[in-house]
């Protein structure tokens, strides 16, 4: 075995999944939704998007459970043959790297805009990369444990910061529900689903679970937490800013936090607190992406996991410098979203259908070994 043999506990998996999903979307989702939907029904989209996400999770899970202890990189060959399987795997690796690069770049851009105006963006990016690589070479266990530690705290702070936004909340901004019929809601499904890109990593992680049977529970809670957070964010931002305003604000989330001030308690302004927690979430998302990519490389090639990590570090850095400006970065986000749709829904369903048709199951001795 390449690294730690201990498997991931169910709680670690929940933390892992939810912190993968909480990422740049906190900042970009509200505006994308508002632009697509245009009515106060935004939050319904988040809920529906979450349900869709859960359905595709179920497909991924039933696929993964057919091949116990095998990751996506290993079992796709069994289903569709070596060549197509390898192509799929490399596509998956490239996709994981793209998400990672996208998250880090978005993080860098926002940090530069709001916090460190003078600092060169490369310095912000590279310092993140270095910390990440230190964590990554240790394998999945330290990653999982760190995330298990950080996720509850960040969730609490997210909820706190959003709830404080109730100070500027106006319920009328959320009314009426389905004023223009259900059509706008359907339009909003795409951006929401794109926000939940990252759940396809379950294809890799289920193989590492201590109790793969609990994967459904993991999907439900691990997806439920981010859906709840996004729901809370979208409701409070819509109530605080109104839909019209959301379409005109580059980062509505930050606009909301900047709009209120509290006097007489420990903090008066909550922008920095929020950014810190968000940075942590971006970092964990990136680490998970890079882990998946490195794991894939080491499965497919002779490169060891450690070496793969160092090589990929350079690749990610180059990818993340490709977008020239913020608009291109946003385009990259959309591309990622659509690829995510492929890997979280289309490919797993196709694989599952083929596997069912060919009655493929994992070999029994694997189970005995575990």
């Amino acid at each position: 075995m390449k690294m730690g043999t201990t498997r991931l506990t169910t709680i670690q998996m929940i933390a892992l999944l939810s912190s993968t999903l909480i990422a740049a979307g906190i900042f970009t989702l509200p505006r994308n939704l508002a632009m697509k939907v245009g009515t106060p029904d935004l939050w319904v989209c988040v809920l529906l998007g979450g349900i869709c996400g859960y359905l595709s999770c179920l497909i991924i899970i039933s696929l993964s459970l057919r091949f116990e202890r095998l990751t996506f990189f290993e079992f796709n060959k069994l289903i569709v043959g070596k060549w197509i399987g390898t192509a799929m795997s490399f596509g998956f690796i490239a996709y994981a790297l793209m998400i990672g690069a996208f998250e880090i770049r978005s993080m860098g851009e926002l940090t530069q805009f709001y916090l460190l105006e003078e600092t060169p963006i490369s310095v912000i990016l590279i310092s993140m990369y270095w910390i990440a690589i230190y964590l990554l070479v240790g394998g999945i266990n330290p990653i999982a444990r760190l995330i298990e530690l950080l996720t509850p705290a960040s969730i609490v702070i997210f909820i706190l910061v959003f709830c404080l936004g109730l100070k500027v909340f106006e319920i009328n901004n959320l009314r009426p529900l389905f004023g223009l019929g259900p059509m706008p809601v359907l339009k909003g499904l795409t951006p929401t689903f794109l926000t939940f890109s990252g759940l396809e990593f379950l294809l890799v992680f289920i193989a590492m679970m201590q109790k793969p049977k609990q994967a459904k529970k993991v999907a439900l809670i691990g997806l439920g937490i981010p859906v709840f957070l996004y729901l809370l964010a979208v409701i409070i931002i819509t109530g605080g800013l109104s839909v019209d305003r959301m379409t005109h604000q580059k980062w509505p989330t930050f606009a909301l936090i900047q709009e209120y001030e509290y006097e007489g308690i420990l903090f008066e302004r909550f922008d920095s607190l929020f950014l810190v927690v968000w940075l942590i979430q971006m970092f964990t998302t990136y680490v998970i992406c890079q882990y998946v990519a490195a794991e894939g490389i080491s499965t497919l090639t002779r490169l060891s996991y450690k070496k793969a990590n160092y090589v990929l570090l350079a690749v990610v850095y180059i990818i993340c410098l490709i977008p020239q400006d913020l608009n291109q970065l946003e385009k990259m986000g959309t591309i990622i979203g659509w690829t995510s749709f492929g890997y979280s829904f289309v490919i797993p369903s196709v694989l599952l259908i083929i596997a069912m048709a060919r009655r493929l199951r994992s070999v029994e001795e694997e189970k005995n070994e575990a």
Partner: protein
Amino acid sequence: MKRKLGVCLFALLLLCGCWDSSDIEDMSFVIGFGIDSSESEQSPIKHTTQIAATKKKGEQGAAPQGRMYQDFTLEGRSIQDILRALSLQLPYPVYTDHLESIIINQEIASKYDLSILLDQMLRDNVTRLSPLVVISNQQASDILNTNIDGEIPSSYISSIFENETSTLKIIPGVRLGKLAANLQSQKSFVLPNVKKLKDTVMVDGAGVVKGKERKLVGFLTIKEVEGVNWLSGKGEAGLLEFKDERDNTIVYEVQNYKTKVKPKYQNGNLTFHVQIEAQGWITEDWSKSAHNMSEHYVKDLERLAEEEINKLVTGVLDKLQQDYKTDVVNFSDSFRIAYPKDYKAMKKNWDDYFSKADVSYHAKVKIINTGDIVK
């Protein structure tokens, strides 16, 4: 061991510093902005920056009556350029994170689209969306230069708006973020108007901004502001002063009130019914024949108070519908909720629809307590 030490020393080199560090004493904290129009055509904007005198504060006990702020008035074509031009006369870079109020002179507010005037502040990454925006029919630079003992005028102004619980003669302060929302959805709204007195500043009525042009179109008096508050339901609490049949003054303290607007849209006819419900106390009564234990008397007072509210509302509605033709009392919100599809089509010309709408209103006043005296 030596190698480890070497690594440590090398790591120290990496900790050489932070690009963005700036010492707090080397920054100019901007507390207020004032925007006036200037005479010259080359530089149409006259912009005043109010900076807190942090240097003086450090020296304890030294001249507390000295000015706590510094004003810089510059002319230019864009606000960003004016702010940068400050660096020719101010050694410390300006920092707008603590901006408290923005004062806009009526002349420039009726000449320029407000979203253009405030564009720099909305675009900027340091300026927050929490400063208050007020209008003034005097020069903003004069108001920022009011000599209030031990106070900075711009933070003084923003503190006045905390009084919205004690008077209905003030409209709730408009934050920059809220203003941006109104501008972007092209909704009409009111901005408080401030006036300089000898050594204080007071809030005096409000300015009306028409949503379509995003320009200032007129002013409302204090009495009319009261009417706006009753109609929009946005006020917190305050007083209602009225007279009884014998011309005695009676003061009703509104503890809380609710305004419900019911729109009706049929065959192109737009009507609104406004239901106002208030609860409160009698806090001053000049009539000698008062019998505040008698139910009859209290009912009488309630009726008089209702009449007074109706009077206030009629006054301001006439002005809004006839003169300004703007919906600043937020009837559009209730209509949007009740008729979302129709609103989508009418949104662009909402103010016209509003000015032609029939508005009926009914006030209901409840006196809970007549105070600690029995006459």
